[in-house]
C-alpha cells in the first residue's frame, strides 16, 4: 500500500483493477439503497392497485362495529406504511445512492471494501 501512494501511476492501476466483483463489493450500500427503493416502489404500485380495485377503504368503512376483515386492514396499513416510505424516504435513498456512486467514480473506494462492513 505504501508503494501505491508513492507511485503516481498507482491510481490508474487501481482503476484498471475495478473488476465487477470489486465494484459491487465497494458499492454494497448504494446498491442496498437502490434495492430498497425499487422494492418500495414496486410494493407501493401493487398495494395501491389492490386497495383501489378491492375498494378496501370502502370495505373497512363498511365493517360496522365488528372488527374489519384482517386482509383489508393489513392491506390498508401496509399501503400507508409503504406509501410513507416511498414518498418520504425513497427520494433521499436514491439521492444518497447516486451521491455514493458518483463519489466512488470520482475518488474510488476510500479503503479496502472488505474492511468496511457497510461499504
Amino acid at each position, binding site marked *: *500500500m*505504501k508503494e*501505491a*501512494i508513492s507511485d*503516481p501511476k*498507482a*491510481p490508474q492501476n*487501481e*482503476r484498471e483493477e475495478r473488476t465487477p466483483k470489486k465494484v459491487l463489493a465497494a458499492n454494497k*450500500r*448504494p446498491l442496498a439503497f437502490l434495492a430498497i427503493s425499487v422494492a418500495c416502489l414496486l410494493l407501493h404500485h401493487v398495494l*395501491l*392497485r389492490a*386497495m*383501489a380495485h378491492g*375498494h*378496501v*377503504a*370502502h370495505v*373497512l*368503512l*363498511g*365493517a*360496522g*362495529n365488528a372488527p*374489519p376483515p384482517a386482509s383489508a386492514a393489513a392491506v*390498508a396499513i401496509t*399501503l*400507508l406504511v409503504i*406509501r*410513507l416510505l416511498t*414518498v*418520504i*424516504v425513497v*427520494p*433521499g*435513498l*436514491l*439521492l*444518497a*445512492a*447516486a*451521491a*455514493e456512486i458518483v*463519489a*466512488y467514480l470520482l*475518488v*474510488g*473506494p*476510500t*479503503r*479496502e471494501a472488505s474492511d*468496511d462492513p*457497510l*461499504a
Partner: protein
Amino acid sequence: MAEARPVLDEGSSVASDAPRKPGSTRALVALLAFVLGFATVPHRVCEREASRWFEGDPEKTEALAAGLERWTSSELAPASFATGSSRFDGEWLFATYVFAAMGFGQVALERPETRTTNLARMERCLEAMLEPRVRAFDDTAWRTDALASTKSAPGSKEDRGHVGYLGYAALPLALHRLLSPSSRFAEREEEIVAALARRIEASPTGFVETYPDEVYPVDNTAALAALAMHARATKQAPSPALARGLLAVRTKAIDPATGLLVQAVDAATGAPRDAPRASGTALAAYFLSFADASTSQALFDALERGQFRTVLGFGGMIEYPAGHRGRGDVDSGLVFLGFGVSASGFAIGASRAHGDLDTFTALYATAHLFGAPFDENGIRTYATGGPIGDAILFAMLTAPRATRWSS
C-alpha cells in the same frame, strides 16, 4: 477530511496506510444527499398537481368526477360506513351525496360545456339525498320527518330544527336551481329554503337546531349558504333570515380570541358549549364563501394565522387552538400530533375559494400523500378515502372563488 486530502490532492483513489475512520467522506456525502432528498423532494412530488387543481384543470376534475359517478351510481347504504354510531353512519352517507352533488354542480358552474353531463350526475345525488333511507338519521333523532316538517304550520311545534339535514340538502338543491332554472327539484328546494328562513327568524338565538337542543353553528352556515344561493337562483332579494343568521354567526359563534368558529352553542342562549375548532371553521369558511365573502375570509384568515402548519412542506390544520385540548371525534376525524384530517381537508376548499395558492398547495400535498390517488382508465379515486373521502375532496378541490358571487 485530513486523511482524505492527500488522496484527493494526488487524484488518487488508492487507500493510504494512514488510519481511516469507518464511514468516511463517502458516507457523509450520502447522508447529506439523503437529508437533501428527504427535505426537498417529497412535498414537491405530492404538490405537483396542486396548481392544476387550483386552476380547475378539466382532465383532473373529469377523472375525479368519473370516480364519484361510479360511487354514486351504485347504491351506498348507512352500513357502508362505520363510525360506531348509526346516526353518524347516516350522516356520512348523506354527506357523501351532498358533497358529490356540490362537486358536480361546481364543475358545471366553472365549465359550462360540461353542464349536461354534470347536471345528470348531480341529479342522481340529489335524488338519493332526498330518499327516506338517507334522511333516516335525522328522522330518528327528531322522531319526525325532516321533509314533512317543512310543510308544518309556521310557528307550530313541528316547525323547528332539522338544520343538519335541511341546511346541507338545501345548498346543492339551490345550486342545481341556479344551474337549471327549470329544475325539477325547484318545488322541494323552495319548501326547504322557506322552512329554514322561518326557523332562523323565529329562533331566539338566530341559530337552528341540528338535533333537539343541539346547535352547531357550522350546520347553520350551510343553511345560510343555501339562502344566498336561492336568492341568486330566483333573482330575488335574500331573505332577512340570511342577515339574521350571519349576525348570529359573527356575534355568537366566532371566538373573539382566536377568530375560529365555536363547534357548538347553547340552544337557548347561543353561548359557546364547545371549543373553537379548526374543522368547523374550515367547513364554515367554505360554506360562507357562497353567502358572505368577508365572514368567510375572516374565518379562513384565522385558520391560516393560528392553525396552519407545515412539516417538510406538507400543510395541515391544527384542530384545537392554543389553550384548548381535545381528542378526535366524528367532526374532526383522526387527530394526529394535533393535526385534524377534516380541518385540513375542508381548508383546501376554503383556500381555493379565497385564491390562496400557497396554502392550497401545501394542503393538497398532504391530501395527495395520505389520500393515495389511483388513476385508471381516466377515472381517479383516492384509495384511502372511500366514497366520502372522494366526495369531500371533489367538492373542496372544485370550490368556486368567493369573488364569483360578489360581482
